[in-house]
């Protein structure tokens, strides 16, 4: 076990701040398959983190474990120093927002109504019955989320009338409406064209500048190169973690993807180019 820890955390991260979301030697079982096998990583507020790795590396599973949606079979996840299990469902849902890979926005619903669903679910009695009435603060949070994602101008449209990119931004607004401390996204740029994908990253960047902690599962390594902090998963373990310069090396990527790649620097950004 010590060997494993050593392998997954090659470098002790500098002291983690008190308000971080931290995975410590996390194991998650997906059925009989160990999807996540001893992952340690720290995610901070105000930092754009991306989780990358080949298909089946355990990225989505890890994300759901960080949210407390997947039971952890070993190790623990802590939020602000407290184990996730010690937070109540309500507290947890206010701190950690989730944007699923394909969020099921009901077709006939108006954008504003969908975004409003992101508000306050955790405050309910038994999680099911609304306790507090809708307040001006709720209204303001919904407005702010609409403004920050540029979805305000079609707040009255129905979801079925939106393009893929508009839909994703509405889903992002829904997640932001809770005013969370961390936003965890599962492949938010999936099915989006390049312009929309960059849009999403730009919106996330703005939120990060405002103090939000972002943890995004990304497939596109060149998008991931725009993150502050990368965690490269492979076979349920951390292959490498750190800044894009530390993680996006031909050696690490070959170990993870079994591909020979060139990594070049363009302006101040890294580009990953697979070799034939």
């Amino acid at each position, binding site marked *: 076990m010590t060997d494993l820890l050593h392998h997954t955390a090659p470098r002790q991260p500098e002291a983690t701040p008190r308000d971080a979301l931290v995975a410590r030697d996390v194991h998650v079982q997906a059925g009989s398959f160990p999807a996540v096998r001893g992952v340690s990583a720290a995610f901070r507020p105000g930092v754009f983190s991306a989780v990358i790795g080949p298909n089946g590396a355990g990225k989505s599973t890890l994300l759901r474990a960080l949210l407390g949606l997947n039971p952890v079979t070993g190790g623990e996840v802590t939020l602000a120093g407290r184990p996730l299990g010690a937070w109540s469902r309500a507290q*947890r*849902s206010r701190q950690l927002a989730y944007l699923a890979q*394909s969020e099921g926005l009901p077709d006939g619903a108006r954008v504003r109504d969908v975004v409003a*669903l*992101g508000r306050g*679910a955790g405050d*309910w009695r038994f999680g099911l*019955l609304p306790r507090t009435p809708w307040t001006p603060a709720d209204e303001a949070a919904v407005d702010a989320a609409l403004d920050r994602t540029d979805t305000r101008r079609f707040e*009255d449209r129905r979801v079925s009338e939106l393009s893929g990119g508009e839909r994703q931004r509405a889903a992002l607004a829904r997640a932001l409406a809770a005013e969370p401390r961390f936003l965890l996204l599962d492949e938010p740029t999936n099915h989006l064209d390049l312009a929309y994908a960059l849009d999403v990253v730009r919106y996330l960047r703005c939120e990060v500048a405002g103090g939000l902690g972002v943890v995004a599962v990304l497939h596109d390594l060149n998008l991931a190169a725009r993150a502050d902090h990368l965690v490269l998963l492979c076979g349920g373990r951390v292959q490498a973690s750190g800044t894009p310069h530390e993680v996006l090396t031909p050696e690490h990527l070959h170990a993870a993807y079994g591909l020979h790649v060139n990594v070049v620097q363009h302006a101040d950004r890294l580009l990953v180019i697979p070799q034939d």
Partner: protein
Amino acid sequence: MQAAAPRRGLGVGLGTLLLAALLLAAVVLGTGLGSVTIPPGEVLGALWRGVTRQALEGNDVIVWQIRLPRVVMGALVGASLSVCGGAFQGVFRNPLADPYLLGVASGSALGATVAIVAGWPRALIPVSALLTALVAVACTLSLAREGRRFPPTRLILAGVVVGSVLSAATTALILRGEDRARQVLAYTLGDLGFSGWRDVLTVLPYAALGCGALLLLARALDTLQLGELTARSLGVPVERLRLIAVIAASLATAGAVAYVGVIGFVGLIVPHMIRLAFGPGHRTLLPLSALLGGALLVGADLLARTTPLSQVGIVTTLLGGPFFLWLLRKERHD
């Protein structure tokens, strides 16, 4: 800055008013038409005299003793089945779910038939119906389940299988209890003909409790439409929501089926019509479905009484079959 001409669909307030008027019209027509035709004005007069406890006159006795219990039962059953249908569709995020297609209605019918054939007190019929409804829905769900999920097609297939098996059991019981065969056979086809005030009062708490609980869950159901994981991330305990909603819907379904039998497709058609007109939010969907469902079933019963179709269950199934096919095609295209 205000966006121009927002498309909100029909206003909910106006819709409520229109549907309430529709329900009232159906009740008045349903009460007035029959072997003796009573004009709407007279029906309203009779209703007013009854409600204000004045002396009854003329046709008032027909209105109050014969026609009205049947019509009120129809409205109650239509409302219950529609609310349950809307709730089932929301809980399983499955546009084809309804009490009939999930086997809950057939389950209720079996319990009710057992009670009728065994000659149990009439008030025990819905209790027996509730027990078998819960068994039926448990069977359907355990057959359909894949891990934490209920894949749409599997759910409906499981419901149809459970429903068929239970209907076969019901038929076997009917054939054994021959002396009551006519009554029970009419019952399995859905019939409002035997409803009296006592039955209405027995069913009322089932409908009120079941539908009331579902209405309270409206916002949680809305949140669930974002997806199960998203709902859980927003703090909704999805398993608990499913359990409570299914029990509440089974309660209302058992009440609805207990005295009038299986009336198919109402719970499927009505919520879809409301969704098309007013959007998918359950806070409007469920109450408006209750109004439209009540009106629709009273209308269908009227059609059954005045045409050779003879039973309300036959009318709704004839209407619902094509609607179901249309829905299937629409889902495939989406």
